[in-house]
C-alpha cells in the first residue's frame, strides 16, 4: 500500500518535473496572478477564457496549467485589495481591511510580500491535506453504486444552492444547469431531447462555450453594468519586504487561516470568499493584538490570504476523489478533464493514477513557483491594475469569441457563448449563484444517469435511495440543508449575501 503510494507520487513527480510540466505551471501561475490582479476578473473567469487553448494540449499538462491558474488567481486578488482597496476577487475582500491601510502607511512592500508568503503557506498546507484526504476518500468512494452517486451529486448541488443568499434562487440556478445538461442525445434511449429541430443541438451544449459564456462573458457584461470607477493607482512598491521575524509573527494567523481554508474548501459551495472572512475573524480572535486589526495589522493580511489559497487543495478533494466539484473553479477543472476524455472520481485513481498524483505534486510546485513569480514581478503585477477597463473588456470579449469558434470551427458555439453570457448576466444581476448553474450543468449527466441506473436496478422502486444507508444519509443531509436554509432565509431573518 505504502509502496504503491510512493510509486504513484514518483509517477506524478516525473510528469510535473519535465520542461512542459514546469512551463505549464509557471504560465498558469503568471496568467492566474494577472487575472486575479485585474479587478472584476477572478480565477474562474481566467480559467474559462483559456479553455480553448487547452484543446490541443496533453490533458495532464492542461490540468497542471489550471492548477497554476487556480493558485495564482487566489494570490493575485490581493494586489488590488492592497493597492486600491478594491478586492480583485471576492476571495480577497477581507485583505482590504488591513492591506489597504498598510499601503496608505507606505508599507506596500510589506503587505504585498506578506500576502504572497501567506498564500504560499496556505497553498502548501492545503496540498499536503489534499493528498491525505483525497486518497482514502477515493478508496471509500470506490464502493459507491448508482444510488450513492446520485445522492452525493444531489448533496453537492443542494449545499451549493443552500449556501447562496436565497435558497430558492440557488435551487433555480442549479436546476437551470441540470435542465441545460439534458439537451441533446439521451444516454439511455438515444432520443434527441430539446433539440427543437436544430442540428447543432443533437450533441447538446458543449462545455467550453458554456463555461466561457456563464463565467467569462457574463462577468464582462456585469462589470459594464455595475461599472465601478477605478482610481489611478500609485503602484510604487517602495517599502521593504517582510523579514523572517515578520513571517514568524504572523505564522499563527497563517496557520489558522490555512486550517479554515482547507476545511471550508472541502465543503461544496462554501469557497474562498467565505474562507477569507472566517480566517480573518478567527485570526483576530486568537491574536495578541486584536485591536490592531482594521488599522494595518500584518496578521490581518496573512490570515485571509492563507485561507483563500488553502481553499485550492481543499476544493480539489471532492473533485478528484468523488468527481463532485465544490466550486466554480473546480467545476472548470473537472470540465478540462472531461473534455480530454477523463472522468474524475475514484476510478481515476485506478485507471489513470498519473492524473491525480501529478495534480497533488503540481499544487505543491505551483505554490513554490508562486514565490519566485510573486517576488520577481511584484512591481509589474501592480501595474496591471491600471489597465483601462474598456480596453480590457473589449480584448477579453474578442478572446472569448475567437476561442469559442476555435473549439469546433462553429459559429453556433459563438452564439451559444453569447446566449450563456446573457443568461449569466441575468443570474448575476438578480443575485443567483452562477456557480450553482455551472455545477448543475457539469453534474447533470452524472445525476441523471445514476438516478436512472438506480431505478433500473431496483426495477422502478424509488425506495432504493432510502434503503441504502449511505444514500439515505446523503439524501437526509440534502433535505436538511434545504429545510434549514428556508428556515434561516425566511423565518429567522434573511442571511447576509455571501
Amino acid at each position, binding site marked *: 500500500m505504502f509502496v504503491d503510494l510512493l510509486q504513484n507520487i514518483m509517477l506524478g513527480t516525473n510528469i510535473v518535473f519535465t520542461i512542459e510540466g514546469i512551463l505549464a505551471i509557471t504560465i498558469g501561475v503568471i496568467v492566474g496572478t494577472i487575472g486575479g490582479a485585474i479587478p472584476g476578473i477572478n480565477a474562474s473567469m481566467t480559467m474559462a477564457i483559456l479553455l480553448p*487553448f487547452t*484543446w*490541443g494540449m496533453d490533458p495532464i499538462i492542461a490540468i497542471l496549467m489550471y492548477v497554476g491558474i487556480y493558485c495564482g488567481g487566489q494570490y493575485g486578488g490581493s494586489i488590488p485589495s492592497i493597492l486600491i482597496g478594491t478586492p480583485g476577487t471576492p476571495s480577497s475582500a477581507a485583505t482590504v481591511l488591513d492591506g489597504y491601510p498598510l499601503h496608505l502607511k507606505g508599507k506596500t512592500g510589506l503587505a504585498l510580500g506578506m500576502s504572497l508568503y501567506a498564500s504560499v503557506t496556505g497553498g502548501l498546507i492545503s496540498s499536503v491535506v489534499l493528498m491525505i484526504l483525497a486518497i482514502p476518500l477515493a478508496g471509500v468512494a470506490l464502493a459507491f453504486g448508482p444510488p450513492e452517486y446520485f445522492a452525493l451529486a444531489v448533496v453537492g448541488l443542494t449545499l451549493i444552492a443552500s449556501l447562496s443568499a*436565497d435558497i*430558492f*434562487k440557488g*435551487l*433555480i440556478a442549479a*436546476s*437551470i444547469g*441540470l*435542465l441545460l445538461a*439534458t439537451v441533446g442525445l*439521451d444516454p*439511455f*434511449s438515444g*432520443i434527441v*431531447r*430539446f433539440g427543437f429541430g436544430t442540428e447543432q443541438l443533437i450533441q447538446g451544449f458543449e462545455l467550453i462555450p458554456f463555461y466561457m459564456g456563464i463565467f467569462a462573458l457574463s462577468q464582462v*457584461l456585469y462589470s*459594464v*453594468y*455595475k*461599472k465601478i470607477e477605478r482610481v489611478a493607482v500609485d503602484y510604487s512598491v517602495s517599502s521593504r519586504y517582510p523579514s523572517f521575524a515578520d513571517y514568524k509573527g504572523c505564522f499563527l494567523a497563517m496557520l489558522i487561516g490555512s486550517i479554515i481554508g482547507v476545511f471550508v474548501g472541502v465543503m461544496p459551495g462554501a469557497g474562498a470568499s467565505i474562507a477569507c472572512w472566517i480566517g480573518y475573524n478567527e485570526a483576530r480572535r486568537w491574536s495578541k493584538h486584536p485591536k490592531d486589526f482594521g488599522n494595518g495589522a500584518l496578521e490581518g493580511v496573512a490570515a485571509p490570504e492563507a485561507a483563500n489559497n488553502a481553499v485550492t487543495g481543499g476544493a480539489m478533494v471532492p473533485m478528484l476523489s468523488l468527481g463532485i466539484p465544490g466550486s466554480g473553479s473546480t467545476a472548470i477543472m473537472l470540465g478540462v478533464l472531461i473534455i480530454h476524455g477523463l472522468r474524475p472520481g475514484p476510478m481515476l485513481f485506478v485507471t489513470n493514477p498519473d492524473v491525480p498524483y501529478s495534480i497533488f505534486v503540481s499544487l505543491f510546485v505551483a505554490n513554490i513557483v508562486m514565490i519566485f513569480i510573486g517576488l520577481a514581478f511584484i512591481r509589474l503585477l501592480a501595474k496591471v491594475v491600471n489597465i*483601462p*477597463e*474598456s*480596453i480590457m*473588456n*473589449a*480584448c477579453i*470579449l*474578442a*478572446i472569448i*469569441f*475567437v476561442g469559442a*469558434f*476555435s473549439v469546433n*470551427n462553429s*459559429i453556433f458555439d*459563438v*452564439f451559444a457563448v*453569447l446566449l450563456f453570457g*446573457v443568461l449569466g*448576466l*441575468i443570474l448575476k444581476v*438578480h443575485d443567483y449563484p452562477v456557480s450553482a448553474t455551472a455545477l448543475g450543468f457539469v453534474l447533470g449527466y452524472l*445525476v*441523471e444517469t445514476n*438516478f*436512472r*441506473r438506480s*431505478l*433500473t436496478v431496483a*426495477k*422502478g422502486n424509488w425506495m432504493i435511495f432510502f434503503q441504502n444507508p449511505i444514500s439515505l444519509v446523503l439524501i437526509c443531509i440534502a433535505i436538511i440543508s434545504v429545510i434549514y436554509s428556508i428556515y434561516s432565509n*425566511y423565518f429567522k431573518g434573511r442571511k447576509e449575501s455571501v
Partner: protein
Amino acid sequence: MATKKLLGRVVLNLAWIIIATVFYWVAIPYASVRTFDPVGPHVFPQIVSVIIIVCAVGNLFIVFLSTKKDKSLVIDIKEAQQTESTDFRNLMKVVLIIIVSGIYIVILNWIGYLFSTILLIFFLVLIQGGTKLNKNLMISCGFSLFLYIVFSRILNILLPEGLLGFIFT
C-alpha cells in the same frame, strides 16, 4: 427604483415558470420511447422543471410578502433618480455590447475573422468610452492581429477568412 426591482423579480420568476413549463411540456412525448429503464427520458427533465416552477412560485410569494411589508418604504427621490439614470446608461451599454457581439457573430464568416474582430474591438471600446479614437484603432488592429497570429499560426486553428481571404493566401 424599489418598485422596478420588484417588477424585475416578478418578470424573471414568471419567465422561469414559462421556460420550465415549456421544457415539461416538450418532454411529455419522450415517454413513448422508453426502452429498458423504468423511468424513461422524460422524467428527469420533468422533475427538474417542477423544482424550478415550485421555487419560482416560492420567490413570487416572497415578493408578494415583501411588497406588503415595505409599504412604508421611504426613498430619497433625488438619489434614486441618479442611480436609475446611471443604471439605465450602463444597461444601454450592455445592450449595445450584446447587439455589436451579435452582429460580429453574423458577419464573422462573411467578412472574415481579422476585419470583423478589428471592428468588434473598436466598437466595444467606443461603447464603453474613455479612450481616444486613434489609440482605440491601434489597440483594435494590434490585438486582432495578435489573436490571429496566436490562433491561426501558433495553434493552427482555421479562422474564417471571408471576403478578404485573398490577402492571407
